[in-house]
C-alpha cells in the first residue's frame, strides 16, 4: 500500500514535472518564434557580397532605353526601378549605373559592376561568359512596326520589309519562322535597326516583346506593336561567371516576383502583353 502511495506521488511529481517541462518548452518555442518574427536577416541560403560596400553596381548598355531606363540614370524605367528594389532587398543603400557596350556585357565584361541588367536573353552561348539569374520578365518575340503598317497573320508578316540586327538572338526567328518574301535588311545592332525603321526603309523589326512595348509606349506616333510570336524566352540579370552572388540574386528576384513588385513595375513602365495579339508561325 505504501509502495502504491509512493508510486502515485512519484507518478504525480513526474507528470507535474512533465507538464512544467512541456509548458517551458512551449514558452521557449513561442519566444523563439516571436524572436524569429522580429529578426530581419538575409533570405536563407546565401548573402550578397558587393564589389563596393553598400552599393549595387549595375551594368547596362543602353541608357536611355524606353521603358527600361528612362530619365536621369536610375530614376525611371522597369530595370532601373527593379535594380533599386533589388538593392533594397539585398540591404544595400544605393544603385550605381555603369554603362558598358552590349557586346562587352555578353562577352562577360561588366567593368566592375556586380550585375548587368540590359534586356538580356539567356542563351547557351552567352552562358559561357556569364551566369544568368532566374528570368524577371517573359519575353516572347514582338513585332515592332512603323505606325500605319498592318499585319494580322503570318502571310501579311511575310509581305513586310524587315530589318534585322546581326547581334540579336531573334534574327534566326525572322529568317526561319517568319521567312519574309524579300531578304531583310541586315544592320549591326538594335540602334541601327531602329534608325532604318524610323527612316521608312523597312516596315518591321523583331524585338523582345517588353522592349518593343517600351519603344511603342515612348513614341506612339512612330511605332506600334503588331503582335507577338510564340516563344517562352525571358529577360534575366547577368552576373560574372562563377559569381557567389547568383543564389541570393535569384532568391531575391523570386521574392520580388512573389510580392507583386515585378508585376507592378511591368504594368507601370511596359504595359500589358496580354493585349498584344498572338500571330502563329509555322516553326
Amino acid at each position, binding site marked *: 500500500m505504501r509502495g502504491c502511495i509512493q508510486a502515485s506521488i512519484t507518478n504525480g511529481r513526474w507528470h507535474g514535472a512533465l507538464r512544467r517541462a512541456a509548458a517551458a518548452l512551449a514558452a521557449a518555442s513561442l519566444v523563439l518564434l516571436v524572436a524569429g518574427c522580429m529578426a530581419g536577416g*538575409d533570405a536563407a541560403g546565401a548573402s550578397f557580397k558587393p564589389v563596393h560596400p553598400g552599393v549595387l553596381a549595375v551594368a547596362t548598355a543602353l541608357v536611355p532605353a524606353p521603358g527600361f531606363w528612362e530619365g536621369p540614370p536610375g530614376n525611371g524605367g522597369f530595370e532601373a526601378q527593379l535594380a533599386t528594389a533589388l538593392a533594397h532587398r539585398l540591404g544595400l543603400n544605393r544603385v550605381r549605373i555603369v554603362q558598358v557596350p552590349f557586346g562587352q556585357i555578353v562577352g562577360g565584361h561588366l567593368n566592375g559592376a556586380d550585375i548587368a541588367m540590359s534586356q538580356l536573353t539567356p542563351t547557351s552561348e552567352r552562358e559561357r561568359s556569364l551566369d544568368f539569374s532566374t528570368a524577371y520578365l517573359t519575353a516572347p518575340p514582338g513585332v515592332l512596326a512603323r505606325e500605319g503598317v498592318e499585319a494580322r497573320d503570318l502571310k501579311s508578316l511575310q509581305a513586310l520589309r524587315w530589318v534585322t540586327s546581326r547581334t540579336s538572338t531573334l534574327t534566326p526567328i525572322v529568317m526561319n519562322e517568319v521567312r519574309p518574301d524579300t531578304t531583310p535588311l541586315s544592320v549591326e545592332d538594335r540602334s541601327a535597326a531602329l534608325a532604318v525603321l524610323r527612316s521608312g526603309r523597312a516596315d518591321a523589326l523583331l524585338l523582345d516583346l517588353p522592349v518593343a512595348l517600351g519603344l511603342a509606349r515612348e513614341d506612339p506616333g512612330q511605332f506600334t506593336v503588331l503582335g507577338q510570336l510564340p516563344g517562352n524566352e525571358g529577360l534575366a540579370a547577368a552576373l560574372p561567371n562563377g559569381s557567389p552572388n547568383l543564389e541570393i540574386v535569384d532568391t531575391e528576384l523570386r521574392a520580388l516576383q512573389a510580392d507583386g513588385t515585378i508585376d507592378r513595375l511591368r504594368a507601370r513602365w511596359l504595359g500589358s502583353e496580354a493585349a498584344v495579339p498572338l500571330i502563329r508561325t509555322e516553326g
Partner: protein
Amino acid sequence: MPLLNESATSGPVFVFLVVFAVILLGPIVVSRFGLPGLIGLVLGGYVIGAHGLGLIPAGDQTVPELGQLGLLYLMFVAGLELDLQILRENRRAAIGLGLLAFVVPGGLGVCIGLGLGWSHGATLLLGALLASHTLIVYPTLREAGLSDTRPVASAVGATVLTDTLALITLAVVAGAETDPGAVPRVIAKIAIGFVVLGIFSIAVLPRLVEAVLRQWGADGVARYLVILVAMLGTSLLALAFGIEGIIGAFFAGLALNSLVPNEGPSMEQVEFFGTAVFVPIFLVSIGLLLDPSVMFTGDALSLAALICGAAFIGKAVACWVAGAWLGFSWPERLTMYVLTVPQAAATLAVTLIGFEIGLFGVTVVNAVLVLIVVSILLAAILTRRVVGWMPAPERGSGRLGARVLVVTPVTGPSDAAVRAAALLSRPDGGSSELVVTRAPGEPAPDSAELRGVRQRLARHGFEGTLRVEVADVSDAVRRAAAAGEHSVVIVDEPAFDHAPTGIPLLVVDGGLSGPSVELVHGGGSEIDEMVAEIQRRFARDAPRARTLRRGSGAMTGRLGSVTVRRRPVAAAAAGDGGAADG
C-alpha cells in the same frame, strides 16, 4: 527509313514503362543488400531521373503529378485505416505527441534560422518544415499488424496535428510575404476552411458517399471510383481555402472510415492500387528530384547536417517525452519515432513554396533533399527492427461489429438480416461476410441472381463479401463458431434452433409482420449490456419502403427490440471458438 522508331523512347508509354520497372525491380534489388524496399523506389527514381540516366526528362510532369496523387492517397489511406475507437481512446496521446513533435523540432529549426541570420519568414518556414513529417513507414507497420496499437494510433493522430500546424505556418508566412497586409485575412481564411472541412467531413461526405454507394455500390469499379472522387473532392475543398490537399485527403479518409472497413473488399481495392501504383510513384517522384552534384556540396551538406540533427533529435526528444508521459515502453516510443521522423510530403511542400517566394535559396532546397533521403533511410531501417521488438498485437478486438457473419439459406438473405449486419458493423468500422447455404442437390444461384443479391446488399449499406457454400445453415454456423473468426453471427433463418456457441448468435426473422431478432446466448454477466448495445445500434435503422422486399412479401417496420434466448453453450463449439465473446 530506320527499322525501329527512335521516338518510341520518349513519350508517356516509355515513361510509364520505366517507372513501373523501377516500382517492380527497385525493392527487389535493394532487398538483396538488406535495405527496405522503399529505399529502392527513391534510389530508382534518382537513377531514371534527369540527374541519373536521364530516362525521365527534366521537364516531365507526368511522374511528379502522379506522385502528388500518391501523396494524397498516402494520407487518405492513413485516415481510412485509422481505428477511430483507438484514436478516441488515445486522443490525449495524439494531441500531446503532436504538440511536442511540432514544438521541439520546430523550435530547433527556428534556433538554426536565427543563428544563421535568416529573415523571419525563412526562419519560421525552416521550423515548420522540420516540425512536419510523413507516414512513410505506416504501410510497413500495418503489414506487421501494428496499425491498431497505441503508439501507431498516437503517431498517426499526431501527424494530423503537426502537419496541419506546419501547413498553417506555411500559409501564413507565404501570405505575409506575397501580400504583407494579408496575414489576418490568410488566418481567417484557413480558420473558416477548417470549419467548412470539418462540417463537410462529418456531416456531408459520409452521407453523400453512402447514398451514392447504395445506388451504384454493387459494382466494385464504381465503388472504388466513388471513394477516389470523394478523396479528391475533399482535397480540392481544402485547397480552395488555402489548406494543403493532404489535409483534405486525411479528412476524407476519416469521413469514410466506417463506410470502408479495413477487412472489406473496398479497402482491398484501395490498398491494392495504393501499394501497386500511387504510393510507389510518390516515392519515385521524390527520387527524381535528387541531384548529387548539387546536394553534396560543402554549403548544402553543412546545412543538411544541421537540419538533420535538429529534425532527428527534435523528434526523438518529442517521442521520448511523450512516451514517458504516456507510460509507453521503449519499443513503443521507437514506433512513434519511426513514424514521426521521415520527412517528405509537407516538408517538400513547405520547402518548394519557400523557394518559389524567395525565402529559400537553392542551398536550402538541396539540404532539405538530403534530409528527406536520410530521414526515410533511417526510418525504413529502424522500422524493420522496431517491428521485431514490438509485442505481438492482440487479435480480436472483442468489438461486437468487428467481423459480422450472415448465414442464410439459398432463399435469402432477408433485408432485415442485411440491415442488421450493416448496423452492427458500421460503428466499429467492421466488415461483413454473407454466406448463402444450399443443400447438395439444390441448384447454385446463377450470376444474375448473385448480381441481384449484391445490388440489394449495396442498397442496405452492406460492405462485405458474398460466397455460396454447400451446407445447411446449422453446419455453416457450427463451422463459423469453430473457426472463431467472427464477432457475431446473424442467422437468417427464423426456424434456427440450435444451442448457442461461444459467439453471439442473432436469429433474424424478417417476417411479414415486421422483423424480429432473437439473441441466442449462453448467459453471462455482459448479456444485458450486449442487448442494450445491439438495440442502440438497431435504433439507427431507417428502412425505406421501396427496399423492404423479401421474396414475394413486402415488409414493414424497423429492427428494434431484441429478445434473449438463454441456453447452455454447446461444449464443443465453445471450446473451439472462444476468441470473440461480444
